[in-house]
């Protein structure tokens, strides 16, 4: 039949049009807990190339950091962050500290500077990732330093948000309820993360303007 294409064609046009109006605003999706954590490749301060998917089978913690940010300082000067990193390591987890500050912005570091800071702070991340153009930061929607993400062994994002429930600069982080620690423990015990999302606090990530 010469005309038989009319039916499928009309149907296709109508359905496409309706669906298109539904999703007119489909910009990049927000990262969600319970969904696979988006993969990325990054340069570490030690010169290695790090790929997230290479860590499948291990729990991964992402920490957005800026060594000049008062909120980050609070956690490093009190030894709170270092302690958490050691605990993660003891559980066999991978800890990636990510610096998304753009050159010229607060917290931007070269590879050497990053290594020096790790040494000085006695920190023990698996790697410090340099993300000066903010690709990974934007991919994860990282907004503050610190902004924490916990990914389980299957590569599913299980926690995102603040490091703890003590956003005030004068609050003692060692006495706070640490959401990341709780998430790590619950995941290790095979439980669901009780508080999977919180509002992150701290300095804004100093992205390339």
């Amino acid at each position, binding site marked *: *039949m010469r005309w038989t294409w009319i039916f499928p064609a009309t149907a296709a046009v109508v359905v496409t*049009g309706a669906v298109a*109006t539904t999703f007119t605003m489909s910009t990049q999706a927000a990262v969600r807990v319970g969904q696979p954590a988006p993969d990325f490749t990054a340069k570490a301060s030690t010169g290695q190339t790090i790929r997230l998917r290479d860590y499948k089978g291990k729990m991964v913690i992402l920490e957005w950091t800026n060594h000049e940010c*008062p909120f980050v300082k609070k956690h490093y000067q009190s030894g709170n962050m270092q302690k958490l990193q050691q605990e993660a390591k003891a559980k066999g987890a991978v800890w990636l500290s990510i610096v998304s500050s753009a050159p010229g912005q607060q917290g931007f570091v070269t590879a050497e500077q990053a290594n020096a800071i790790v040494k000085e702070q006695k920190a023990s991340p698996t790697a410090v990732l340099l993300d000066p153009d903010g690709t990974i930061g934007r991919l994860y929607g990282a*907004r503050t330093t610190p902004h924490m993400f916990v990914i389980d062994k299957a590569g599913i994002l299980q926690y995102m948000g603040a490091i703890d429930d003590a956003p*005030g600069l004068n609050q003692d982080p060692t006495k706070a309820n640490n959401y990341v620690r709780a998430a790590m423990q619950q995941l290790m015990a095979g439980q669901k993360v009780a508080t999977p*999302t919180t*509002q992150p606090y701290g300095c804004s*990530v100093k992205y390339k303007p």
Partner: protein
Amino acid sequence: MGRRQCCWWGWVALLLWSWLALALPARAEVPRYVQASLLSDAQVVQAGQPFWVGLRLRITPGWHVYWQNPGDSGDRVRVDWQLPAGATAGEWQWPYPQRIPVGPLVNFGYKDEVILLAAITPPATITPGQTLDLRAQASWLVCQTDCIPEATTLSLSLPVGAQVVVNPETAARFDQVRSTHPQPAPWPVRYALTPETLTLRWPERDVTQAVFFPLADGIITNAAPQTLRRTAQGAELTMQRGYQDPLAATTVAGVLVLTTSRGTQAYQIAATPVEAPRTGPVVQLVALAFLGGLLLNVMPCVLPILSLKTLHLVEKVRQSPGQVRTSGLVYGAGVLVSFWGLAGGLLILRAFGEQLGWGFQLQSPGMVLVLIYVLFGVALNLSGVFTIGAQWVGAGQHLTEKPGYVGEFFSGVLATVAATPCTAPFMATAIGAALLLPPLAALVVFTGLGAGFALPYVLLCFVPAWCRWLPRPGNWMHTLQQLLAFPLYGAAAWLLWVLTLQTGTDGLAVGLTGLVLVGLAAWLYGRAQHQTHWRRWGRFSALVLLAFCLTLPSWLPVAQQAPTPAMAETTWEPFTAARLAELRRQGQPVFVNFTAAWCVSCQVNERLVFSQPEVQQAFRQRGIRLLKADWTRRNPEITRVLQEFGRSGVPLYVLYPGNNRAPVVWPSRLSTAQVKVLLSSQTGG
């Protein structure tokens, strides 16, 4: 000022400066970027009498402090009161914030200056002559790109008197501040979700700018743009969703800032999920739509076409049952596709903010004109002036050689087009709901409607046993076919009347000219079919004439604003929302008749019920004011009210019983006895 004096001042300044420099290390807490102070709208306070205190933050230009929800980063302004025993402080009132972009992030906060207000109630035991000492520890994060946490202790001492003495300057300033406080929204706000977006909907239409500030984090992606769109029902703001997933069934709370022709106003909202209005789940709606579709089959504007089709079925089923099945399915497909087309059209129109309803085509004179031509053309065809028959409405002869699936498909389309004027009560509700549903759900509802409409014929094709009940073919079929042309002529004539109401006698002239030309084209075409030497010229000129007819809608005069004859009746006042509100304010009972000239059931009710003296008498006895909302032409005000009742078509009868009691929707089919019963049960007496 003498020279000596000048030097003297210089020394004092130097001394002061060095003294300050010495004192500074001890006062490291003095904020650098924000000057904070406490203000009171009472110069003298009175025991137990609340007054307002403002925390004023003056912010260095280019820097900002944060709102309750700081957005992507930052921290809200925090204040801890240290009040004398017995004094109480109310919640801080926050002016609406602004969006402050920081790189690719967006914060919610304030620039330059902000005043937070709180009501303070002094202890009841305090006596005149004492002072009330207020102390507050205020802290905030002030940011440009980098952030500085600052804090300070503020105090304010106020004398206590026998009566409150207002500080007029501060009181006036506070009044200004209050105009930036979110007010409770005067209308409900609904939200709709897609996997990626969150859309807020509200009925206020006159909006040029809108910004939403959620109270909780992760509801929206703060930095993503917010898109404002005006719709038939009001306006909607679409935002990208944030990381919070289980939003469904919870409220979305925040501040909605709208800029209208009257200025900018912030509203406190707690949006609830969009629901299919007064219906429930989509399944129920689809069922309702399906029933509505079934009912359409027996509507007078569809029955002629359908019975014509069943006539051909008798012939065809003998030839080959398989072919009949296929053509039944193709007919069904035609119906479905045109329902989808209608749904798509509705959705697109909705997107463009058009005023619409199920009969929306009939509000546009151009559409009416085209419909008149189509109906007239089909009628001429039935009368035998020409035969496209085999392919179009299926006049049958060639079907044995040629399956005519295209014809089946388009007769499905035609049946749907013809069904539009018959707004069955079922369908009105289903479509009204569909208009408020997300597009995909709306499509599903329309599919239900189409399926119901197509089912009877498709079933007949599939169960040949039922075909045996069909009348036997014979010469009477042609008689019937020609007879069936007359309802179509009637429909065209009725539409012409509608067109006249819409565009006046000039419009009528254009319509009639078109009819004559369509007649001529049909005749030429018919000649071309029967006489070979006519063929080329006949078809060509028919096409030219038809093309010319298509330009006629643009000749139509602009829709008249004068009231239609029906509106001029004395007992009915024309409806306006303002008039309705006024009457209701006066506590009067009001009956509103939503009607249109092209709505058959409205006209029936009008002639047989409302114009009856006994009904008029019943209304008069109870002092009920009668308003008529005439929807013959587009009227956004009326459309909005219909939407509020979950309808997209007329008739709709609503009784507002007076004394601000809730309105009652009456059934669409009425009788005089029923009106009297309804009136006495709903208004007493």
